[in-house]
């Protein structure tokens, strides 16, 4: 059956939607409007960047609604259900409200940092999306330093928090900023080490190549590293159970306490967008991003696979958020420095030693990294390495859990003994001093 040419053109665009739109626009600029090639490319780049930034911000309308709905179900209520179908436009209504509110500048505030802080905060989140690959052909910027770019950009968020905390001239906000620094800075260490695993296994920092080499998702190859990375990421966002930096019941929202109106909305947007962004990064770095069946022939499917993975991860994150109680700051610090970092370091060293030994013993150990080979050959080629690494992970993970449970039991017994000693003091009871005579 012969299809009409317009249908085949549309199908061709649909199979690789981003490249298709790009080419379409290029023909429009160059052939119809007669612009120069270079200018046309710049215009397309600008449109891409604009669309990406808008996607991140508009996506919030959905994710905030989703999060509120899920939290409502967890807490046995309905959640937003008035504005629009299923309350889906609730966030739009909230935005409208915030836009008409007064932006209060507190006394003695330092105005320039005060207004720069939310802008830098949201910038540090949106710009991460430049290195998130959507399909095999579509990525904002396939940098050769993609993984490093992501951690570097997100460390700008720390500056934003410090600026907000300092410029508001409020004790709570300063305290929140300090807590944020102590916690975020600590959790960046397991984050870096967890990020190093995909980089090391792939041999490049380009996000596109990292996804491409995940014939078997790295989470199923290095589950311990994946879980540690995920914990560190949640802490980086400052969500429950790691939300001490804004802990409403302790320091009344922390560093953004003095913000109101749209300045607050921007902070709120940055936080929510960050929560979604880390899910996308987790999906890309440990759950193989756009990888799925037939994605090589129909690149557009990559968006679907990525979307499904991100949504599942996001659901788990929201679920954890509304079921796990907040940890105490000292517990958070102990978890980071005395559990996650040591386990990660041990895992790293053991992995290096055994992986290198296996590479020397097993032939064609790294051949799967070559993207020119056929898919099934690469998939089977990865199996030996996946087996070896999974074995290491299981051993190290079991060892770490064993050590922790043993120490936890000793700690519990110690506290129990102290409590018993308090209730029944040894020896005869001391006479009560009345002080009357």
């Amino acid at each position, binding site marked *: 059956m012969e299809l009409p040419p317009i249908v085949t053109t549309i199908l061709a665009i649909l199979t690789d939607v981003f490249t298709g739109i790009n080419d379409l626009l290029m023909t429009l600029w160059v052939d119809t409007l007669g612009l120069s090639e270079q200018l046309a490319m710049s215009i397309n780049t600008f449109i891409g960047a604009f669309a990406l930034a808008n996607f991140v911000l508009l996506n919030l309308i959905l994710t905030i609604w989703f999060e509120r709905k899920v939290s409502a179900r967890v807490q046995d209520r309905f959640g937003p259900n008035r504005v629009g179908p299923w309350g889906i436009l609730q966030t739009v209504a909230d935005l409208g409200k915030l836009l008409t509110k007064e932006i209060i500048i507190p006394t003695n505030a330092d105005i320039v*940092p005060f207004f720069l802080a939310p802008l830098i905060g949201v910038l540090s989140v949106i710009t991460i999306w430049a290195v998130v690959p959507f399909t095999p052909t579509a990525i904002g910027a396939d940098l050769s330093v993609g993984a490093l770019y992501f951690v570097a950009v997100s460390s700008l968020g720390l*500056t934003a928090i*410090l600026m907000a905390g300092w410029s508001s001239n409020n004790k709570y906000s300063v305290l929140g900023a300090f807590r944020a*620094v102590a916690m975020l800075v600590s959790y960046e260490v397991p984050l870096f080490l967890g990020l190093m695993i995909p980089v090391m296994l792939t041999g490049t920092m380009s996000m596109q190549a990292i996804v491409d080499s995940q014939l078997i998702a790295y989470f199923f190859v290095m589950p311990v590293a994946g879980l540690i990375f995920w914990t560190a990421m949640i802490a980086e966002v400052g969500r429950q159970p790691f939300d001490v930096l804004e802990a409403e019941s302790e320091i009344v929202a922390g560093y953004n306490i003095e913000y109101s109106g749209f300045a607050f909305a921007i902070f709120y947007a940055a936080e929510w967008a960050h929560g979604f962004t880390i899910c996308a990064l987790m999906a890309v770095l440990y759950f193989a991003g756009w990888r799925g069946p037939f994605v090589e022939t129909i690149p557009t499917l990559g968006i679907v696979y990525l979307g499904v993975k991100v949504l599942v991860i996001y659901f788990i994150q929201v679920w954890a958020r509304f079921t796990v109680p907040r940890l105490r700051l000292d517990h958070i610090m102990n978890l980071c420095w005395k559990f996650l970092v040591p386990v990660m370091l041990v895992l790293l060293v053991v992995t290096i030693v055994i992986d290198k030994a296996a590479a020397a013993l097993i032939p064609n150990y790294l051949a799967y990294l070559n993207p020119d080979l056929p898919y099934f050959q690469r998939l089977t080629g990865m199996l030996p390495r996946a087996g070896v690494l999974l074995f290491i992970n299981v051993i190290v993970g079991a060892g770490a859990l064993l050590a922790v449970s043993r120490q936890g039991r000793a700690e519990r017994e110690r506290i129990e003994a102290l409590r018993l000693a308090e209730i029944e003091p040894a020896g005869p009871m001391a006479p009560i001093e009345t002080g009357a005579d």
Partner: protein
Amino acid sequence: MTFSIIWIPFFLMAAFTIGGGLGVVISRNLIHAALFLALSLFGMAGLFVLLEATFIAGAQVLVYLGAIAVLITITIMVTRRLMGITETVNRQWPIAALISLLVFITLTVVNVNAFGAVLEPVAPVPADDITLLGLLLADAEGYFVPFEVASVLLLAALIGSIVVAREARE
């Protein structure tokens, strides 16, 4: 020398770097100075990108903006009495200004005389520059010894500064 589009980011980033540097040395409020330092370091990362040292640019943001600027800000906040200081320059500032002007003039004259004619890089950057860097760092013929010494230096710095900063325990 004809105008090229790459000049715009260069001048923007140079303005960030130099403006931030000026802010560091002349602003009276120390927190502002720290923020200007962050701006300057960010502009420097932009210049590194223009020089196609992308790994160094990322490392610059990570180390300087993510860690050193934060550490400086924390120190300013921990030593809170600084906030009251209004006088920021000492008595010898005119001499200091003169000296730094002389340094600038000397460096500029020497640089322009020696390298004023260099307009183009000699070769493109290799595509796998980060791999080459990694191999060079861990190579016995390359920078293996400085690589290990750097880690020992950082270990020593950590131990030393913890000992110095720690409050005396009973």
